[in-house]
C-alpha cells in the first residue's frame, strides 16, 4: 500500500464516522427525505463516470462512461428535486414557514 492509499483509508473511516454521528440525529420524521438525499448524493459516481467518458480510453470505455454519466446525472437531478419537493411539504400547524414558537391554535 502506498501513503496515498493509507490516507484514503483514513478519509473513508473518518467520513464514515461523521456520517454516522450526523445521521443518527436525523429524526424519523425525515427518514424518507434522508433516503432521497443520500440517493442524490450517491450520484457522486458521476465524478468517476465523467473520467471514464472523457478520458479517451477507447470506444468501449467511452460508451460505458456515457451510460454511467446518464444514470448518475439522472439520480443527481431527480434526487435533489424530489428531496426539495418532499421537504417543502413539511409544515408546522401555524403554517409559518419559519419561527420556532410553540403556539398552536392559530390554524383554526
Amino acid at each position: 500500500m502506498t501513503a496515498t492509499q493509507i490516507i484514503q483509508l483514513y478519509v473513508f473511516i473518518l467520513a464514515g464516522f461523521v456520517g454516522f454521528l450526523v445521521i443518527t440525529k436525523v429524526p424519523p420524521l425525515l427518514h424518507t427525505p434522508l433516503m432521497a438525499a443520500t440517493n442524490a448524493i450517491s450520484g457522486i459516481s458521476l465524478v468517476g463516470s465523467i473520467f471514464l467518458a472523457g478520458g479517451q480510453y477507447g470506444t468501449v470505455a467511452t460508451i460505458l462512461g456515457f451510460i454511467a454519466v446518464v444514470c448518475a446525472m439522472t439520480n443527481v437531478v431527480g434526487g435533489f428535486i424530489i428531496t426539495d419537493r418532499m421537504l417543502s411539504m413539511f409544515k408546522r400547524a401555524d403554517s409559518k414557514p419559519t419561527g420556532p414558537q410553540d403556539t398552536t391554535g392559530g390554524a383554526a
Partner: protein
Amino acid sequence: MSLLLFLAGLPTAAAAAYLLMTAPSGAALDAIGGRELVVQLVYLVSSVLFVLGLRSLTKIDQARRGMQLAALGMMFAIVGTMLNQGILTFSWIIGGLVLGTVLGYPLGKFVPMTAMPQRIAFSHMFGALAATLVGVGEYYHSVQIPDAQGIERFKMAAIGFEVLFGSLTVTGSFMAFGKLQEFITGRPITFKGQNLFNLALFASAIVCFLWLIFNPFDVRVFYIMLAIGFAIGILMVLPIGGADMPVVVSLLNSYAGLAASATGFAIDNNVLIIAGALDGASGFILSMVMSKAMNRSFSNVLFGAFGSPVTASGKTSEGLVARSISAEDAAVQLAYAGRVVFVPGYGMAVAQAQHQVRELAELIEKNGGEVKFAIHPVAGRMPGHMNVLLAEANVPYDKMYDMDEINESFPETDVVVVIGANDVVNPAAKNDKASPIYGMPILNVSAARNIIVLKRGMNPGFAGIENELFFDEKTSMLFGDAKSSLTKLVSEVKAL
C-alpha cells in the same frame, strides 16, 4: 454556520477561476499545484457541503436550505471534475449530462409521493449501475495497457468491491422495485436449498474476488464475478417479503454508497470516498433502525424467510367475534371525542387515503377535539413513508409523533383510528410468546378507551398473524376500502 461556509465557498470558486487563468495551461507545476490544486480544493468544498447538507436534515426548518447547499456541492464536484486534465473529450460527457437531466427531471418532479418507495429503489439501481459501469470500464482499460506490470493489488481490490457491491445492488434494487411496484409478487419466494445455494454463490464471488487480486489479468474471472454479483442481487431479495422492504431498501442504499466509495479508492478521488462513506453510513443506520423496530436482526430479515413456512401464527381467531360498526356510529364517536389519535399504515398508502384522513382530522379539531398522528418506524414500505404521505396531505409535522413520543398518551386517548395498519398495533407482540412478532415494539393502541379499525376484511396482515386487537371489546371494525370509509366518515361528521 452553513451560510458562512456557503460564503466561504464562493471565494474558493473565484480563486479557482483565477488560478486557472494564471496557471500555465496544461502543465502541473510540481507534485500538486496549478489546476490540480484547484480541482482538489473544489472537491474539498463539495465534501464539506455534503456533510452540512446531511446535517441540516436534523433540523426540519433548515433542511431545505441545507439540501440546496448539498446540491451546490454536487455542482462544484461536477465542475471540478471537468477541470481535470485527464478529461480530453467533452462531447460524450455533455451529452450524458443533458440526457440525465432530461430523464431525472420528471423522476423528481412528477412521481407521486405514494410511489416513493419504488421510486427510491429504482434510483438506487441507477446509482449502482453507474458505479458498476465505472468499475467495469476502469478494469477494461487497465488490462489493455500492456506495459504496466499488472494492476496494483489495492486498486484491484477497490475495483472488485465496486463491481461486486454495484452489481448486486443493481439487480437487488430492481427486485425491490418490482416487489414494491407489485409486478413481482410481494410474498417471499423460496425454494429448497435456497440458503445453501446462496451461500455457495456468495462464497464463489469471494473466491473470484481474491483470485483477481493476485491475478488481475484473468479477464474471464472478472466477468464471472460480475455475473455472480448480478445473480446474488436477485436471489438475495427474492425471498424477502414486501413488509420487510424498508430494511432491504435501506441496506441497498448503503451498498450503493459503498460502491461509490470503492470507486473513489479505484480512481484516487477523495470526494467519491467521502460522499460514498456518508451514504453508506446513512443506509446502514436506517436499516439498523428498521430492524430494531421489527425486533429482528439483519440476518433474520435477510434469511428469515428460509425454512420457516408461513404457517406460523401464535393464536387463532376461533370462537372470537369481531364487532363491526357502521360509519354513522363511528362518526358520532369521533365527532364528540376529546382526544383522537390516528394510526396510519400501509393500507392508507395503498388506498391513497391521506387527504381524507387530514379532512377528517380537521373536522374533529373544528369540533374541539385534539388530533395526533402516531407513526411506527416500520409503518409502510420505507423509513418515514407515513410522514411524507401525511405531509403531502398538509398534515402539520408537529402533529406527527414517533412511537416513543406517543405510547404513554394512549391511556388518555378517547378514540384511536387505525387505518390499514396491522402488525404494528398487534398486542401479540407483547403478550404472546408463541407469536412470530413477539418482542417487536408496538404502538400501545389497546390502552386507549375506544379503537376503530378501518380494514378491508378480516384476513390477517402481511405477516399472516392473527391480530387480537380486532377482537378486543373496545375495538369496533369499520370494514371497507380506507378511502371510501373515510369519505363516508367525513360526510357523516359534517352532517351531525
